[in-house]
């Protein structure tokens, strides 16, 4: 049975304000799911919920997350609904670090938008990869891990510090850290923003190669132009709700008004590329 990540009924609150309402998200191994929407549509919050990362107070109040990897099934959000019902969410979140430890960096890796910022400025790339490796039991060498992330000469990069890396190299280093311990899923949050066009292209090709190797990629972006070329399926979010989920190639033929307005805005600005 192929590796699968399924998140259902996700609900996130900031105080009383509802940021995300019953969002579902299914991701299979080897598939690229694009999560698209304007800024503030809750796409990043939903992705962070998969790793139980800290967010607004009280944050995730309802979620059923199920990770099936190699026959093993994990349900980290077990006990959340009871704790929230009892009015004591703290009771769940205090043990959240243990609940999510087997997932963070082991089964699900992440790539931040500002790749250079996601690396410790005072440590060399090698030291950060060694730290990631030491958390698991894999016997890989740092150079091998970097090689898998698409570096042609890993030796040259090991001794460098984050501020010496170009945009593209920093993104690849983040990919290496995310997959150091054999993660089966990768969350890429706006991986192409701020990069020069040619470098953007290289990173997207990299994501497609990883998907080809059986890794499930969740690609978060507000740039509709890259979706048909890269993603298998696309899920459009608007103001915290999932508007529609459809195969990426059918994106331009979608009927719902929110999708149309997004496509029009992008078409006006993006020229004939869509």
């Amino acid at each position: 049975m192929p590796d699968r990540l399924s998140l259902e009924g996700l609900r996130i609150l900031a105080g009383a304000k509802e940021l995300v309402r019953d969002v579902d998200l299914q991701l299979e191994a080897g598939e690229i799911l694009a999560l698209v929407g304007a800024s503030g549509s809750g796409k990043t919050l939903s992705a962070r919920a998969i790793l139980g990362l800290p967010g607004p107070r009280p944050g995730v109040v309802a979620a059923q997350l199920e990770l099936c990897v190699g026959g093993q099934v994990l349900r980290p959000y077990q006990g959340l609904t009871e704790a929230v019902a009892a009015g004591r969410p703290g009771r769940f979140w205090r043990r959240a670090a243990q609940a999510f430890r087997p997932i963070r960096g082991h089964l699900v890796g992440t790539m931040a938008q500002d790749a250079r910022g996601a690396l410790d400025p005072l440590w060399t790339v090698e030291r950060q990869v060694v730290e990631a490796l030491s958390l698991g039991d894999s016997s890989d060498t740092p150079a091998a891990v970097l090689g898998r992330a698409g570096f042609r000469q890993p030796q040259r990069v090991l001794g460098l510090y984050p501020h010496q890396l170009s945009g593209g190299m920093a993104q690849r280093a983040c990919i290496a850290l995310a997959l150091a311990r054999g993660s089966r899923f990768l969350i890429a949050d706006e991986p192409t923003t701020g990069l020069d066009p040619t470098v953007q292209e290289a990173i997207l090709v990299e994501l497609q190669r990883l998907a080809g190797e059986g890794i499930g990629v969740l690609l978060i972006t507000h740039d509709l132009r890259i979706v048909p070329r890269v993603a298998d399926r696309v899920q459009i979010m608007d103001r915290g709700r999932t508007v529609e989920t459809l195969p990426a190639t059918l994106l331009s033929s979608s009927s719902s008004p929110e999708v149309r307005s997004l496509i029009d805005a992008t078409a006006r600005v993006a020229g004939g590329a869509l």
Partner: protein
Amino acid sequence: MTPLLAIRGMVKRYRNPGFTGLVGRRSEAAVDGVDLEVQPGESVGLIGESGSGKTTLVRAALGLLDFEQGEVELLGHPLRGLSKGQLRGLRGRCQLMLQSPDASLNPGLSVLEHLLESARLHRPQADAGEVVADFAERVGISHRLAGLPYELSGGEKRRVGIARLLIADPHLTVADEPTAGLDAALKAEITDLLLATRSPERGHLFISHDIPLIAYACQRVAVMYAGRVVEELPVSAIGAVQHHPYTSALLQAAGFAVDCPPALAAAPAGRGLPGCCYLGPCPLALPCCSQQAPELRALADADGPGQHRVACHHVAPGVSP
């Protein structure tokens, strides 16, 4: 018709301090002999990757940076001949919108104070309060007049920048990466606001590495690489003519259907070397490319004579003089 902005043969060098500032002082030409014009009623685009000298070219052309060689005519006045006072007088009619507008607002002043200052400076006869209310409404910032810059979002800060620009009512509007980091919906709105001043005697110069945006906003576009303009063409001709290899690579990366061999490894830009600046990554390099830098030569493929010019021995082989 006198052009709003005419740049001829501009060269601007940056002294690379080299080791300890004494040994190895190399001066790199950030702008290496560029000709560019903006005619009234025209919107011109300037694209190229970061570090190609786009920003330096524009700041030097507006007299904010000095440059070693070349001539600039701003609204018909030769730049070199102007005194500081005369140049400042011209500023009102040629406005620059900076890449990071949140940096170009005074962190200690509220939005209202920013707009009032522009109104008193550029429209002394009109009542400042009315001007501010009118333009704040027009760019959609009237609900944040009391806010300080750090309380505003990226989009709101850009709106304040545009309001100040519109109050000055410039003949020439220069926008440096006006929509960097914005999402599609905001990008479209900000661009439309900038184009609001479009009229037969006004011109725009847009700088960006976002080609679809330039295609949407401009009629003519120049492509810069390593301090030189390597191609100039009407926007309608994009994808329809044979491009300079670098332009093709840019278009392909931006999703345009262009068949061209992939660029070689991203070699550093060949600045200051004899021959073509794109020699490193160019897949179509010829022997003569390394000796002699190609000139911008017109090609007869686009509509109208001299509309499409390319600096490349392969695409536009020049008849040796």
